[in-house]
């Protein structure tokens, strides 16, 4: 009987694997394993070099990415389930770099807290691994796996400070919302699979393109997008973000705010540009609603925050709105779509630089004040002018004041919206414009506190900042300024297109 069953089984032959293409993933995998091994073997004694090792790992994984980029031609594997094209490479590089910066941020923070350290980096690396897989994932299964691979370690990292109730709560909320969202998303995916009979996005795209529109499809699309909207903390799926950001260890917050948000967007654009390409009628208005809501709610609530991290959480929600905005017009035409994609990528890259920078500063200040309350930043300019100036650069960049990076990011978004020349485009542009003024206000009031007010306890002993943090600050500040002054940098990397996959 069973023999008979076995007899039916077609002999399995391994699909061809392009080792060069998967080299980054493999390297990270290796380092992750290595770290876990070290942890198992050396226990405490591993502390000394794990962070360095993690850093090296991330940079090492960058090497094949670069070589791939130089080589330049797109590679497809597992009948197009796994693609390495420019877009993928750019995003991978960004993930690896921001991961590296997070390592820099973490080094002292983690080693000074009395928690296990080695797992931390193990988690970090596997989460980044998930992200770079996500960058090339072009079918539902891979996307799902990648998503979980990057999420589950993130849950744990958020809960890192075990004995701290806030950290617990942060992790718990993040986890619960996460699994719930992904469950909903999976349901949507299952429906999609049911309708199209495939999980490969490209094929799915063709089916949806030709197939008539059924309500099931709409439902499925909404559910799937909702899942990732949760990841990028777009209103109304944002609720977890502020709490988690506030409670989680700051470096982890930075990681979530930049890397995992970016990962969410990667998935989103892949779905929109490859999978749902034909169904602009559904995802465009959906994106419009999400973007508008996120920008407005995020900024308005941010106005009333007294805690810097929490404020950043809301500002992050708002920026999620900005990044989504171009997707609301993506379906108009091929060129517009390309422009929209570039806008998204540009924004992600610049946003990574300036946001990580902000968190770096927050960490630096917290080393002295042990607090992220905005009021505790008063008079910073008197005793930490350096930090103040850098923070000014970052916040102004976020507010979009030239010549700091952010203006260019906003500019491309506006351009994408205006160029589409549709009502939705213009209306979003207006909303975005209004919002950037509101945003300016809360950024400014932070600056005002730092520059103009007196230090609360008159204590003006300068802050000592460890080398790694300085490194992080330097990197991010440099990038932010460079992007702002010479946006060409971003343009070259952001010059990508996904439509080839969807055949226009």
């Amino acid at each position, binding site marked *: 009987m069973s023999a008979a069953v076995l007899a039916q089984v077609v002999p399995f032959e391994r699909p061809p694997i392009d080792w060069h293409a998967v080299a980054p993933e493999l390297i990270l995998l290796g380092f992750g394993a290595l770290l876990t091994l070290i942890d198992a073997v050396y226990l405490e004694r591993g502390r000394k070099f794990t962070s360095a090792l993690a850093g090296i790992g991330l940079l090492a994984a960058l090497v094949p990415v670069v070589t791939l980029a130089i080589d330049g031609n797109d590679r497809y594997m597992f009948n197009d389930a796994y693609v390495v094209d420019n877009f993928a490479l750019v995003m991978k590089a960004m993930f690896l770099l921001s991961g590296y910066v997070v390592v820099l941020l973490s080094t002292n923070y983690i080693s000074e807290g009395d928690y296990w350290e080695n797992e931390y980096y193990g988690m970090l690396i596997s989460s980044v691994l998930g992200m770079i897989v996500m960058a090339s994932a072009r079918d*539902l*299964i891979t996307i*799902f*796996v990648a998503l*979980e691979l990057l999420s*589950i370690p993130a*849950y*744990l990292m958020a*809960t890192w400070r*075990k*004995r701290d*109730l*806030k950290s*617990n*709560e*942060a*992790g*718990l*909320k993040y*986890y*619960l919302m996460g*699994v*719930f969202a992904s*469950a*909903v998303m*999976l*349901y949507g*995916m*299952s*429906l999609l*699979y*049911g309708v199209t*009979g*495939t*999980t490969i996005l490209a094929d799915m795209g063709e089916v949806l393109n030709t197939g008539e529109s059924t309500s099931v499809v709409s439902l499925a699309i909404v559910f799937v997008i909702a899942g990732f909207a949760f990841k990028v903390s777009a209103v109304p799926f944002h609720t977890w973000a*502020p*709490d988690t950001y*506030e*409670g989680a260890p700051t470096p982890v917050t930075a990681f979530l705010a930049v890397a995992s948000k970016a990962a969410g967007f990667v998935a989103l654009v892949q779905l929109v540009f490859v999978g749902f390409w034909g169904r602009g009628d559904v995802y465009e208005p959906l994106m419009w609603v999400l973007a508008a809501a996120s920008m407005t709610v995020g900024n308005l609530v941010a106005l009333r*925050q007294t805690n810097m991290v*929490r404020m950043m959480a809301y500002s992050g929600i708002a920026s999620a709105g900005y990044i989504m905005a171009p997707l609301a017009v993506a379906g108009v035409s091929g060129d517009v779509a390309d422009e929209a994609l570039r806008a998204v990528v540009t924004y992600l890259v610049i946003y990574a630089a300036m946001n990580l920078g902000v968190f770096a500063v927050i960490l630096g200040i917290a080393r002295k004040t042990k607090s992220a309350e905005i009021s505790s930043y008063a008079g910073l300019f008197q005793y930490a002018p350096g930090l103040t100036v850098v923070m000014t650069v970052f916040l102004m960049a976020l507010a979009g004041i030239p010549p700091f990076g952010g203006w260019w990011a906003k500019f491309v978004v506006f351009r994408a919206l205006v160029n589409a020349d549709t009502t939705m485009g213009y209306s979003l542009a207006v909303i975005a414009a209004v919002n950037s003024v509101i945003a300016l206000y809360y950024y400014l009031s932070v600056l005002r506190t730092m520059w103009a007010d007196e230090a609360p306890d008159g204590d003006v002993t300068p802050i000592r900042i460890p080398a790694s943090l300085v490194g992080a600050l330097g990197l991010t500040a440099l990038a932010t300024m460079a992007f702002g002054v010479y946006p060409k940098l971003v343009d070259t990397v952001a010059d990508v297109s996904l439509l080839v996959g969807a055949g226009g």
Partner: protein
Amino acid sequence: MMLNQFLLLAAALFCIGVYGVLTRRNGVLVLMSVELILNAVNINLVAFGAFQDNVMGDVFAVFVIAVAAAEVGVGLAMVLLMYRNRKSIDFTEVDMLKG
């Protein structure tokens, strides 16, 4: 013909799961509710797979099951941690962070 019944079952499971997630105060029960949703998904996948006879659905289902295991593992760890720190696994009590 056959398909719809599976889908309805899955939908029912899904709804029950959601209901549980939203209403159960006990952490463990919430986790179980999540499992219900995932199983609804699995049923969908397998049903569709059989219906369109390609293996992708089954593969997907397998992945879901595997991942779900990991998820629940983490989840239970968290509930445990919560119990350790505050001697309770009532999710409604967890609201230090708000606003």
